Structure formats: C-alpha cells, structure tokens
C-alpha cells in the first residue's frame, strides 16, 4: 500500500497503489483527513494502481466525501480498474462520487 500525492491547480491528487484493506485503510484515512483539514475542498483520487479494496476503505471514502460536501466540495474517482469499479458499483458508490476515466479528465471538472 502506498499513497503518492501531488497537486495540480490547487487540486490534491492522491494516487493509490496496492491493497486497501482492513489493515491498511487507516493510512488512507489519515492522509485524506490531513488533506481535508489542510483546506482542500475538492480531491482527485487516482485509482489506477489499486489491486484490492474492501469495505474498510469504502467507509473511509464515504466519511471523507461527507466531510468535503460540507464545503460543497467533491471527490473524483479516476482511472478505476474494472475489479475496483465493481466493488464501488456493488456498494452503490458510483452514484455518490464523481467518476472519470482519467485524472486529466477529472481535473477539467474543476477548471
């Protein structure tokens, strides 16, 4: 599990790598909390390199989305592999988050 962070036009982009399960999701929680506490309203998550995701990580994302929505922000899920997309779909999350094929397309939303 690894999270790389970069910033484009004031939008934090977190690239998630590896497994996001009940052992590792707390790192995602800490990172997202620190980004949101740092004042970010909108966040882009690059999910291209996610190998595995379980409900522990989904809960973290749901809580974070509720947090940014308080300031009318959004979280964009970009570049989801099909196995990851299926988990989001089963959880009914695709309707809650903004979903884009690539990070570049995701960034256009904020222009």
């Amino acid at each position, binding site marked *: 599990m690894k999270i790389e962070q970069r910033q484009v036009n004031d939008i934090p982009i977190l690239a998630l790598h590896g*497994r996001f*399960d*009940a*052992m590792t999701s707390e790192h995602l929680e800490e990172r997202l909390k620190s980004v949101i506490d740092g004042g970010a309203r909108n966040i882009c998550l690059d999910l291209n390199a996610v190998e*595995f995701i*379980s*409900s*522990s990580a*989904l*809960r973290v994302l*749901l*809580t974070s*989305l*509720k947090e940014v*929505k308080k300031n009318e922000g959004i979280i964009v899920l970009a570049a989801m592999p099909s*196995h990851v997309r299926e*988990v989001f779909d*089963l*959880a*009914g999350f695709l309707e*809650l988050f903004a979903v884009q094929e690539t990070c570049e397309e995701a960034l256009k939303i904020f222009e």
Partner: protein
Amino acid sequence: MILKIILENNRHDLAKLQNAIDTFTEEHNLNVDIGFGLNLALEELFINVILHAYDDRLLHAIEISLDYDANKITGQITDDGRCFDPTLHPEPDLSAKLEERKNGGLGIHLARRFFDNWKYHREKDKNILNFEKRLIRERSG
C-alpha cells in the same frame, strides 16, 4: 485440496488469510476475479467477527476452510462469538442519499453478493457459516 486455517481475533491475522487464499487460488488455477472475490468476501466476514462477535478481550480462534472441485468452491467459517447470522443481516439502503448513507452493513453486503449460496447454523456455542461459489470455466480450444 482442503485449506484449513485458524486465525486469531486480531486484524493483523488478515495477512495470513490473504496468503492462504492466494496460495489456494494459485494451486487451483482460479481466475483473478475469483481470487479477488474470495479475498473480499472472506476479509469482510473475518473482520466482522473480530469487530462484533466478542465482548471480552480474550484470544479467540476463528477457523476458515476452503474446498475445491471443478464446479465450485465451498467453505466454512466458524467462530465462538455471540450468536450472529450474517445471512439475515439487513441489506444496506444503497439508494439513500449521501447524508443518509450508513457505514455499517457494507461488508456483509459485499460477501453476500459474491457467494452463490450461504447457510448459517449455531452449534455448541459456535457460529458456523457454510458458503459456496460456483465456478464457470472458460472453454478451452
């Protein structure tokens, strides 16, 4: 081959479960979707037991077994926690608006969607959940 693994009620034992499932998946040449689904469903059920089954802080054993034949994977999860039947757990409301979405119930929902059959019974103060996943083999040639 029957895989049998005994885990402690400690989330770090999830790594042992993941390794066992990966070995099982490789040995039976199961496709990546089945491997992913097994990892997901069994993690959700294992973590659910750890978080909700025990009132004490004692060590408990959670036993997971998997068996394979050409048409299906079957398995069982046994724990000595409080009586809980996941098959009767209510479905989360997936159409609720964001503000009304609850964090609970998602894991069991994901497990339910992966298995084709699952059946619960209580025996000698133990929760026993049997499950089955049918396999659809791609035709060769």
